[in-house]
């Protein structure tokens, strides 16, 4: 048993180790290790395409994280009050949106938004004066953010609701009995109790959005996120530079995951 478990852990971590090891390759070919150096990190960091893609990913992931933690928390609080069939319906929808494969979300968003844009663009254009180029709605940041948020919001809802379920309702009642306004109760009683879950949801949403490839691939339009860039470079051929970028992406997600884990742990200790 013990040997088997060790083998599975090796299976899980050796490939990651290999990526990291080869990113320090001094040679020019990805597959031959010739001494260690950090030159490929320098190359990756000074590559303008990598920089652009990184910032696109960063902006998208930040917006997704902010939006989904805001919307997710409010939705979780609102769902708490729903009863009966509507609640079952929403619960179902939440799980469906978590379980649906990314590719379906990607295609659905792409097709739906293009249809809506095709419908709206002529209308928008008709409002604009002659000769001035009317604004045109296209795929871009907004579509990626919307598609990612669909998934990550459900994640936040699930996390926050687990936290609310563990909360003592008597505290809220006590606060209301002591003449606190509902707002004040929310600020001073509810929020401090659920904020670790919200923060963990924020970090997980960020990680998901930052690492997601398939949804962005469909709806990003002309924008390139970091995973799309990595995908394209792997298609062109493998170089140590890809390993270096990959290692940095892995390190970033690991760091965020540890932060999220730490927050969720802090919650159980209290």
């Amino acid at each position, binding site marked *: *048993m*013990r040997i*088997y*478990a060790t083998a*599975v*852990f090796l*299976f*899980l*971590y050796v*490939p*990651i180790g*290999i*990526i990291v090891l*080869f990113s320090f390759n001094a040679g020019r070919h*990805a*597959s*031959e290790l010739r001494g260690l150096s950090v030159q490929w990190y320098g190359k990756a960091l000074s590559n303008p395409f990598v920089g652009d893609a990184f910032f696109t990913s960063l902006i998208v992931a930040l917006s997704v994280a902010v939006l989904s933690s805001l*919307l997710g928390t409010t*939705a979780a609080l609102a769902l708490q009050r729903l009863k009966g069939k509507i609640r079952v319906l*929403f619960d179902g*929808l*939440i799980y*469906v*949106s978590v*379980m*649906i*494969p*990314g*590719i*379906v979300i990607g*295609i*659905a*968003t*792409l*097709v*739906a938004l293009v*249809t809506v844009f095709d419908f709206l663009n002529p209308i928008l254009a008709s409002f604009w004066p002659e000769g001035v180029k009317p604004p045109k709605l296209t795929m871009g940041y907004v579509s990626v953010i919307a598609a990612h948020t*669909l998934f990550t*919001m459900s994640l936040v809802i699930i996390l926050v609701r687990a936290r609310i379920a563990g909360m003592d309702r008597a505290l809220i009642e006590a606060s209301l009995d002591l003449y606190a306004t509902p707002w004040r109760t929310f600020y001073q009683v509810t929020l401090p109790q659920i904020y670790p879950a919200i923060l963990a949801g924020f970090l*997980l949403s960020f*990680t*998901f959005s930052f*690492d997601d*490839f*398939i949804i962005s*691939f*469909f709806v990003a339009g002309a924008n390139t996120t970091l*995973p799309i860039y*990595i*995908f394209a470079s*792997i298609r062109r051929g*493998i170089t140590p530079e*890809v390993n270096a970028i*990959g290692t940095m*992406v*892995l390190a970033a*997600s*690991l760091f965020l*995951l540890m932060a999220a*884990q730490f927050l969720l742990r802090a919650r159980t200790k209290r």
Partner: protein
Amino acid sequence: MWFLVMLIFPLIVILVFSFGERAAYGGYAGGFTFEQYANLPTRLKAFQNTMVIAPLGTLLSLLVAYPLAYFLAVKVSRQYKLILLVLVIVPFWTSLLVRTYAWIFILGGKGIPFLLEWIGFEGVRLINTQGAVLVGIVYGYLPLMVFPIFVSLEKLDKSLLEASSDLGGSPVKTFLQITLPLSMPGIATGCMLVFILLMGEFLIPAFLGGGKVFFIGNALVDLFLQSRNWPFGAAVSVTLVAIMLITVSLYMRMMMGRKTGRDESLM
């Protein structure tokens, strides 16, 4: 409301698209025809691959994951349990893209085939085969399988196991009659999660199948982003979602049936 807008509306649009015709420059022209569905057999290979490899991959993941989950839930002492479990889950939250890339490395020309050549086996080709795709699948989705099984095994009352062995049940019999049936919910959840995600998989076959082993997902990317044949792509995705819904509901019914069956036998 957000859900209704983002989830239901796109699906309706796709449904409408799938009955339409292809416009001259790609995109969509209105109409109502079953032509797109009649064309489905041209992508038969993708459907076949998906319907064979997705269940196979799910089964393999289960076979690899179950002993690990069992080990973590039953054998490991409390203090290491959580750390080890987190170690299993963490890779799932890091980039699947980068992790699959690692296997191009390992299975590719200078990886394992190179080592094998060194020992004396020449001309072994691992990448771009069904086997490579399966390895990638097990590697990518193992955490998702381990977690639900771990949870259901963890909840299992250990005194039941003791009772069984006290009553003279051999370890194998105890496992088959107590542990396995009680961990069924975890197995069912894990299999369903992995299977659903595999049906829409794109990256793993794209990287490790090298154009030879492709899934419906790859056909969809091709149709929507390269050849821009949207109505046909829509027809393919409607079929994919339909297959998914049918298999999942059949599967759930089977699981439910098994559950009530057991309850009856208890009575």
